[in-house]
């Protein structure tokens, strides 16, 4: 007797929406078990992690603020993933975008007219795009695996960041503590409520743009075909090289924008450490959201909730905020596992002898 995965003829609609929900439920259950196994009250822990952060208005604002860079990055990345272009260097592109945007703010210092922020946004996006152009170039010109190059460049970006804030961008009045000057108030996005700023509107715009691109634009269709059926794409004349460049530049621009938003929103300067791995979590968001703009939005909100939950656990129970990562990883595991049930059906095969009757049974079944 063995268990076999049999491809479905059509993907299960039920599982398509039910899958992620089941995955979330499973994550909560496993999380509760882990809490209990380590001697912490599971009910308290789960409540503090999933519910408490959004019970207050500032909490809801924080949720939007944290979800913004995640969803922007994820939508940018999803275009590439659909096209089978694996950019996993979003973290690096985000960081370079932040450095460029921040440098722009400091270049104009102390000037803070409205135009400074516009330049900063452009600089952020340009920085991210430039950093993403490197793996794109290496792939189209030298055939180098973009997974590895984009990943390596992330760690180069981190060192570049450190160099900038201890060197050229070091705050002259900050006693040599590794961070930049604070940005003047005019360079920040306006506040909507609590900690939520107008930068959240960028997220909305990006979500809309992403949805339009994938469902309406011809180029979006081309990306899909290149990603799923490369032979057909060649036949139709869709250029894979163009898809590679497009994917990286869009993802890089999005990541750079996300980085810029982070440092102008809650942070207001270039500190030693400003991202808890948004670029990597954005990849998880893209997958949990199944590469669909609406799905990714929901996934981004969930992941943001988990980040806040980690902070909550730190404040209430003195637990390390890295726990958020534990839940985020678990959620992705369960989502990936549930994916299987969307594309495949589980079949238990009793015995190898009875082949003919089994075939007719399989036909008559579901």
């Amino acid at each position: 007797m063995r268990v076999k995965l049999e491809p479905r003829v059509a993907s299960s609609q039920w599982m398509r929406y039910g899958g992620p929900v089941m995955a979330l439920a499973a994550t909560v259950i496993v999380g509760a078990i882990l809490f209990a196994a380590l001697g912490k009250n599971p009910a308290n822990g789960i409540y503090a992690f999933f519910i408490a952060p959004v019970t207050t208005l500032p909490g809801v604002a924080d949720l939007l603020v944290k979800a913004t860079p995640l969803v922007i990055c994820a939508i940018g990345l999803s275009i590439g993933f659909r096209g089978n272009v694996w950019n996993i260097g979003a973290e690096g592109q985000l960081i370079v975008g932040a450095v460029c945007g921040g440098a722009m703010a400091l270049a104009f210092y102390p000037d803070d007219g409205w135009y400074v922020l516009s330049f900063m946004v452009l600089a952020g996006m340009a920085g991210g795009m430039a950093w993403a152009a490197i793996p794109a170039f290496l792939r189209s010109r030298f055939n180098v695996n973009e997974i590895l190059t984009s990943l390596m460049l992330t760690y180069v970006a981190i060192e570049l960041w450190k160099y900038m804030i201890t060197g050229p961008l070091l705050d002259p009045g900050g006693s040599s503590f590794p961070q930049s000057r604070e940005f003047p108030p005019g360079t920040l996005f306006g506040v909507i409520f609590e900690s939520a700023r107008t930068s959240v509107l960028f997220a909305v715009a990006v979500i809309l743009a992403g949805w339009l691109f994938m469902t309406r634009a011809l180029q979006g269709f081309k990306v899909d075909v290149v990603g799923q059926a490369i032979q057909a794409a060649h036949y139709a004349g869709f250029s894979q090289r163009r898809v590679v460049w497009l994917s990286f530049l869009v993802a890089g621009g999005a990541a750079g924008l996300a980085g810029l938003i982070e440092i102008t929103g809650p942070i207001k300067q270039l500190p030693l450490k400003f991202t808890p791995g948004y670029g990597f979590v954005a990849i998880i968001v893209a997958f949990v959201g199944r590469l669909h703009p609406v799905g990714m939005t929901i996934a981004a909100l969930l992941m943001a909730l988990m980040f806040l939950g980690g902070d909550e656990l730190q404040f209430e129970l003195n637990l390390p905020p890295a726990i958020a990562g534990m839940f985020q990883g678990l959620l992705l595991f369960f989502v990936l596992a549930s994916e299987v049930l969307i594309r495949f059906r589980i079949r238990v095969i009793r015995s190898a002898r009875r082949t003919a009757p089994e075939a007719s049974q399989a036909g008559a079944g579901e």
Partner: protein
Amino acid sequence: MNEDQIVQLLILMLKGASPLIFAALGELIVEKSGVLNLGVEGMMLMGAVAGFIGASEYGFVVGIFFAMAAGVLMSLLFGVLTLSLVSNQVATGLALTIFGIGLSAFVGIPFESTKLESTIGVIEIPLLADIPLLGPLLFKHDPLLYLSIVLLALVSWFLYRTRGGLILRAVGESHDAAHALGYSVIKIRYIAVAFGGAMAGLGGAYLSLVLTPGWEQDMTAQRGWIALALVVFATWRPMRVLVGAWLFGGLTILNLWAQSQGIGLPQQLLTALPFLATIVVLVLISRDAAMIRLNAPASLGKPFHPTS
């Protein structure tokens, strides 16, 4: 600076290279079988924390086993998802890393900032250890460091001189052809992935049991990613992993030494060098199809769909 000091610094370099050697060897086998497991950092951290817990509670040897077991369990999580459930390897590997960072931080809370009572001790090879200069450099190390060298030799011999290694490489080059020949691609990859997990766990244990020793959150400090880079930098050949590990480990010591001596070396550039060097190597070996075929496992990262 005299020769004795140079030897001391080289010894530090060797010790710093050991966790990289373990983790990179494991990932090398995994990638040779055609699988890309990006979860090395998470597996190393779980190995470090499990090893520390085991050693604190039950002694050093138990610690090593805990570390390897933790690594294997983590890697099997990856294995089930990517090999049996055919999920995307990149996403799963990243999830494994993020999960491992969080889980190890959680599990290790009661053990942070505690002291390890049982230490590993040092193996001194009689007579040879007394040779001036060369003696302490080559013959007076902890058992795990020697193990890393032995394992390196074993992996090299396995890959290129045994049938098993040939089959593994065949699976990595063309899983369809290997499948057609009757080899169980999935089973071979499971074994490779588990081996990678055990090695990553050992690498983590070296950090928490020998190098520091101790447990702190996130203590691998990107070494998992450096190990991934190292496998590529070494173009998937074990002996080059050794040299690369020395180079990468040596860079850190060079950085520290230059700092203390007042020599102005660009610190961040040196830290970024392993990653930059890896990109250069990638460009060199990918220049044309022939070079790629000679070096990288052709099926790397491609999911395997058995057609029967």
